[in-house]
């Protein structure tokens, strides 16, 4: 994990100083799947998720190049933040009320068919439905931490909270999820 961090930092350095497309490509390889999952859980459609992911990467590239004097602590943190903003724009465009009510769209992926491929199908569906019952803040930290396996610093940067606040939120979210699952 430590080596991975240094690798990301070196790639970010190349991106900032030399606008190196190869560095960007390497970062894309590192984070494309994670960002896709993050977006997919939020928007529930494959095509929309793909569009938003493309847009997020391009906006991240443009941001880094136009803010070269600004400190970018981590590429992934910035990418997730931008992806989050793209999702907000997506819902604004669609005039959806699901986002504001704190509920995910019912259409998770291909109408929910995807979880049938999981070995533990019942458990998978149960978990997802439980997550859907959580408030938005809890959903986010749970998926970022355990599905995308981000570090606390990255989650903090994405959510705009401090690390301690993220830990507390995560603890409460997991506790709440447990309660829901045990019901």
């Amino acid at each position, binding site marked *: 994990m430590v080596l991975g961090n240094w690798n990301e930092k070196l790639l970010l350095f190349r991106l900032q100083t030399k606008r190196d*497309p190869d560095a960007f490509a390497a970062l894309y390889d590192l984070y494309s799947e994670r960002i896709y*999952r993050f977006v997919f859980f939020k928007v529930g459609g494959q095509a929309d998720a793909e569009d938003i992911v*493309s847009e997020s990467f391009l906006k991240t590239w443009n941001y880094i190049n136009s803010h070269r004097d600004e*400190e970018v602590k981590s590429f992934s943190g910035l990418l997730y933040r931008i992806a989050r903003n793209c999702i907000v724009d997506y819902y604004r465009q669609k005039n959806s009320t699901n986002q504001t009510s704190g509920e995910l769209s019912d259409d998770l992926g291909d109408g929910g068919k995807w979880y049938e491929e999981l070995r533990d199908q019942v458990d998978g569906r149960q978990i997802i439905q439980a997550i859907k019952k959580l408030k938005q803040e809890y959903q986010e930290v749970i998926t970022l931490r355990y599905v995308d396996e981000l570090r606390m610093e990255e989650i903090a940067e994405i959510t705009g909270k401090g690390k301690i606040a993220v830990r507390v939120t995560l603890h409460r979210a997991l506790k709440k999820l447990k309660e829901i699952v045990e019901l």
Partner: protein
Amino acid sequence: MSRDLIQKLKQLKHGSAKPRAEWLKSNREILLSQIRNTTVDLGVKQSTYHINNIWTGLAIFFPKPLVYNVMRPMAVLLIVTMVATSGWITTVDAAYNTLPGDWLYSAKRVAEKTQVTVASVVGAKTTETKLHSEFAKRRASEAKQIVKGTDPKKNEKVTQVVNDLKQEIKNVNANLEEIKSDGVSASVIKDVKQDAEQIKNVLQEVKTDLLAAVATSSTDSMANDAMAKQVSEAKDMVKDASVKAVEVMVAKHLEGDTSVSVAELKQEISTTLATMATESDATKLTIDATQAVVDAAKVEAKEATKAPAVNTSTKELSDKISAMADTTKEAVVKSDEAKVVTDQKITEGQDLLAKGEFSGAVDKIKEATVAASAVEKINDEAMAKVQTVLPVASVVKEVAPILATASTTPIQVIVSTSTATATPKVQVQVIVTTTVNKK
């Protein structure tokens, strides 16, 4: 339970939440082509090194405030201390021979500025003056290297270093003025004067190289001429600084400064006058050599027009060379007149020196400098005009020393023209077949 729950959460990333492999790949290609277009539009050099990248790089691994508010100032302080104590020899050596555009060149300039700052802060005026003089020498040397090189950005770089050189000389002059009025030893002035002589010689070489540079287009000619003028201006400034150094030496001596003895002072003034006399003769030789070459070329070109199947371009070339011969002749006349004034002033200076009238001798040196600069300007203009038609500058270097001998036999200069193309190319060769008349 928590562990089990977490495990199930982690499993969610497999299955349809996983992106399509073919989409990942195609999206990657599309993104890369989009961003590559961005970097082309911006004209960004992807391999450019900038010294500030060091701090940018460190800011990736350390908090930015730590890097910019602590680490960088500490590094600068360390550099200043080491340079001030002459302890950073390796780095200075590594940067010493760099030219504008090299990545260590900025480090070299930073080190120079730091040295001057330190000298200025501790009030070491003599050190500061010597430093400016040394840096002016470096700029002259850099100009020489750049002109001899093949850098496509030669013009810009020469202009840059010549401007920097002029600034250093201005600083030297300003410091000399201060030294004049405060209790600082005059011995440093001798060093400045010596440096000024060296710089003058280097700049003369640079000017000659610029004039002799093969111009493939009129744009190149104009650029070289402009740079030669810049170098001339810089050379005049250096001459003035050299004269000022002598002036300050005399002033200090008259104030009772014993760091330079009377004998040394006389020697300095005498050397200055002798150098001016030599330079005056050399300038005369140059214009005479130019005339010799142009006259020889005129004869050759006229012969060529007598050929049975002469074309229009050959005739045009002959006419141009004839015109150049007239121009050069006029320049020689004006140059001779101005040289008379120069020589007269030098002689008067030598007379005053012999009488011990040092201030008077310095005034004559100043007057002779003005006259000599006028002669040089006439010659440079004539040479630049001729060079547009005949590439004589490099040939003149060979011819001038020969004219300086006691030989009375004319030198044979062969001018060959190639009329194969619509625009005839002219090449000038010197074939020396002199015999010295022994009296």
